[in-house]
């Protein structure tokens, strides 16, 4: 017993080091699996508050380009309304109970794109009825999926995250695949598992497929840059250029599918 105590006292620094090393490596491994970093995330009042203060200053520098982007989206939406036969009735009234999607605007207060697993932070939280697993889009395309929330802030797993997988399809046909990122360029994202008989061309538009209950069908993603047949020789591997400039984001929209519970109940009856 004496010897054990002596051993611990002699090597206390090494043992303390090993203890802390185990904790930190545990946290690292946890963070590499999707939806697991529950303790270490920036959706808390201190880090959120600091990022919010910093963003309230830095957002002034991008006012012009952000206004331009919002104006472009307004013009696009106006064009849709004027050209549709329904006239002005085509807008979605989110206050009535009859709609499927509820939308909330938010601001990105921390952007990140240089890492392998990028996580963003937005300034809306549980107070604004934001939950985990909601879709986040910008005027030009998809951004990511919400993850951890606290009362005022929410972390968003970016599409530029190697653990993220989103269902996507060709706009002109219904051939679908899954969208993931290989971690190389923040402008290019990979679409895998597209069936070999899909009529794919360079320049085709890729949109979300609406197969998962997170994003509605038809949210823009990007255009095909190039494609090749993968190792199994049954599927295409497509490089997609994003419409979004992920390095310059400010205003985003959070989409909540109000029928999610019903869909989940049908798809996973056992849970």
């Amino acid at each position, binding site marked *: 017993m004496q010897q054990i105590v002596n051993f611990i006292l002699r090597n*206390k*620094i090494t043992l*303390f*080091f090993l203890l*802390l*090393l185990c*904790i*930190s*490596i*545990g*946290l*690292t*491994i*946890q*963070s*590499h699996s999707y939806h697991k*970093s529950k303790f*270490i*995330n*920036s959706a*808390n009042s201190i*880090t959120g508050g*600091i*990022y919010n203060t*910093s963003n309230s200053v830095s957002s002034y520098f991008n006012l012009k380009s952000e206004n331009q982007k919002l104006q472009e989206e307004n013009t696009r939406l106006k064009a849709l309304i004027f050209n549709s036969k329904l006239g002005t009735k085509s807008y979605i009234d989110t206050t009535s109970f009859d709609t499927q999607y509820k939308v909330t605007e938010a601001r990105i207060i921390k952007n*990140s*794109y*240089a*890492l*392998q*697993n990028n*996580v963003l*932070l937005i300034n809306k939280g549980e107070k604004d009825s934001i939950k985990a697993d909601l879709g986040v889009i910008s005027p030009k395309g998809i951004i990511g999926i919400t993850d951890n929330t606290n009362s005022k802030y929410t*972390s968003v797993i970016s599409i530029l995250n190697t653990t993220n997988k989103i269902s996507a399809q060709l706009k002109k046909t219904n051939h679908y695949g899954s969208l993931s990122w290989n*971690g190389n360029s*923040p402008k290019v994202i990979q679409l895998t598992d597209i069936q070999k008989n899909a009529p794919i061309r360079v320049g085709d538009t890729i949109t979300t497929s609406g197969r998962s209950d997170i994003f509605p069908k038809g949210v823009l993603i990007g255009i095909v840059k190039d494609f090749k047949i993968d190792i199994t020789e049954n599927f295409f591997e497509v490089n997609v250029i994003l419409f979004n400039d992920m*390095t310059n984001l400010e205003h985003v929209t959070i989409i909540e599918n109000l029928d999610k519970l019903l869909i989940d109940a049908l798809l996973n009856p056992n849970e």
Partner: protein
Amino acid sequence: MNNLLSIHTIRFIALILLQVLLFNNINFMGYINPMVYILFIILFPVKNNKTLFLFLSFLLGLIIDIFMDSGGINATATLVTAFIRPAVLKFSFGAVYEHQALKFNNIDFGQKITYITLLTVTHHIIYFSLEIFNTSKIILVLQNTLFSSIFTIILCVLITTIFSTKSK
């Protein structure tokens, strides 16, 4: 002693804020960011309690991790860097370190560069191999380590040089 304590507390907080608000957003050439917060480990007093030093380094990395949503990557890297610091000190400064008379303000420039380079490269290799976490991308790990290390070393040497002339 009290003065020393407050300097290190202020440096701890200031480096975290600088790193998170300024240096993480540089993105030179798209992905190169300096990690200047390891200056805290570089400049921590040699004589001090080793357990406390390990714990503070771990805490520093963990706080940066919380800001960056990166799990425990920074915590692991800073912890290992802090653990090997005595060996690096002995290698870079030799006899001066043995006599515990080391002052970071009046050391040889070449020795300082050796010391900062060794600690920075260790930190960056661990950081990037954990961040990328994929053996098939080992070239990317080395490339990131090289470029970020150069950036970090230049900034660390500049900052220590600028601030050392002022005190004593």
